C-alpha cells in the first residue's frame, strides 16, 4: 500500500490548507457585519422571503448523459488493459455496449437534452398573454414551469364542459 502514501500526504496537505485558510481569514479579516451587508441584494427592495432557486429540468438530462458516459468509461478502462487478449471478440463486446449507450444518448438529445435554445423561443410558448389587457391592472406572469422549452406542456385535453377553460386558453389566438 506504499503507493498510496503520496495520496495520503496530499490529503493531509489539502486538509491543512483548508483549515489554515479558514483560521487565517477568521483571525486576520475584519468582521463587522450589519443587517444591510448580510442581506441579499434585491435591487434595493427589502426581501420578504427566501426564494428557492429553480433549475431547468434539462439539467437532469445533462446529468444523465454525464452518468452514462461516466459508467461507460469505467468499463472501458479494464477492457483497454486486456484488449490485446480479447482481440475482435472484445472489440465486438465493447462496440455493442457503446452502441447501446449511444442509442440512449441519441434519445436524450432528441428529447432536447442539449437544446438550450434562445430566450425568444421560450417567450413564444408563453401560455398566458404577457401584455396587460383592457380590464386587468395586474400583468399575469405565466407559471415558470410552463415556460420551459423542449419539455413543453402537452396541450391540455379540452374538456367538453364549458365551466372551465383549460390552462393556456387564456392566450389570444393572435
Amino acid at each position: 500500500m506504499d503507493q498510496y502514501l503520496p495520496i495520503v500526504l496530499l490529503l493531509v496537505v489539502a486538509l491543512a490548507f483548508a483549515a489554515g485558510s479558514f483560521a487565517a481569514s477568521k483571525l486576520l479579516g475584519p468582521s463587522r457585519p450589519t443587517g444591510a451587508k448580510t442581506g441579499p441584494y434585491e435591487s434595493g427592495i427589502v426581501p420578504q422571503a427566501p426564494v428557492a432557486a429553480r433549475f431547468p429540468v434539462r439539467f437532469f438530462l445533462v446529468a444523465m448523459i454525464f452518468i452514462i458516459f461516466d459508467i461507460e468509461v469505467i468499463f472501458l478502462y479494464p477492457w483497454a488493459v486486456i484488449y490485446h487478449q480479447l482481440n475482435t471478440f472484445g472489440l465486438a463486446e465493447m462496440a455493442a455496449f457503446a452502441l447501446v449507450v449511444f442509442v440512449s444518448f441519441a434519445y436524450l438529445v432528441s428529447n432536447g437534452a442539449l437544446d438550450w435554445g434562445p430566450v425568444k423561443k421560450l417567450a413564444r410558448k408563453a401560455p398566458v398573454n404577457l401584455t396587460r389587457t383592457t380590464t386587468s391592472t395586474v400583468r399575469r406572469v405565466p407559471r415558470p414551469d410552463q415556460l420551459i422549452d423542449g419539455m413543453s406542456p402537452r396541450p391540455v385535453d379540452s374538456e367538453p364542459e364549458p365551466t372551465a377553460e383549460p390552462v393556456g386558453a387564456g392566450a389570444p389566438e393572435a
Partner: protein
Amino acid sequence: MIAALLATPQPMSVHLAHASAWAVFAVGAVLILSGALGVVLLRNPVHCALMLVITLFGIALEFIDQSADFLAAVQIIVYAGAVVILFLFVIMFLGVDRRERFMREPFRGQKPLAVILGLITLAEILVLSRVGNWSTGQHGVAGDLNGPGENIQKLGQSIYTRYLLPFEMTSALLVIAVVATVVLARQQSRAPSELTKDEQAGVAAAAADKAEAKR
C-alpha cells in the same frame, strides 16, 4: 454480556496480518460508520449528502485494504464524484436545502419501534460475530488476487469473458435510467380539475379577460 461479546478476539485480526492493513481497515470503518450516522442524524439535507461522501470514501479505503485498487478508484469517481453530486443537485432542485422538520410523525410509535428493531439487529450481529468458526465454502470462483497479473487485468478477464452477459445487460440498466429520467423529469401538465384554487382563479380570470376582449 455485550461487553463479553466484544471482548472476544475478532476473527478479522487473523486475516489482516499487517498492522498497516489493520490501520486502513480501522480508519475506513470509522469513516463509514461516522458518515452513515451523519447521514441519518444531521438535519440539513446538503450536510447529509456530504456525509455520504465520507461513507463512500471509507468504503473506497476498505477496497484498497482488499487490494481492489481499481474498485476503490471507481468508488471515488462514480459514487463520490457523480452520484452524490446528483443527490446534491436534486436537493437543490427541490429547494429542500434547509433544515427539515420531522416533528410530525405519520405513524405513532415509529421511532421507539425503530430503535428496538435496530438494537435487536445489533444484538444479532454481535451474537453472530461471537460464533467465530463460520463454515464457509471453497475459494471464490473469480480466482486468487495474489496470482500473476495486475488487479485490473484480472477484473477485465473476469468481466469480459465469464461475466460477459451481465456486463452487456448492464447497458439495459443504463437505457432504463435514461428513459426514466425523461419520463419522470418531464413537465407535468395537469388537468383543470387538478389545479390549485389560485391557479383555477387565474384561469377563470384569463377566460373572463378573453371574453371581455371579444366584446
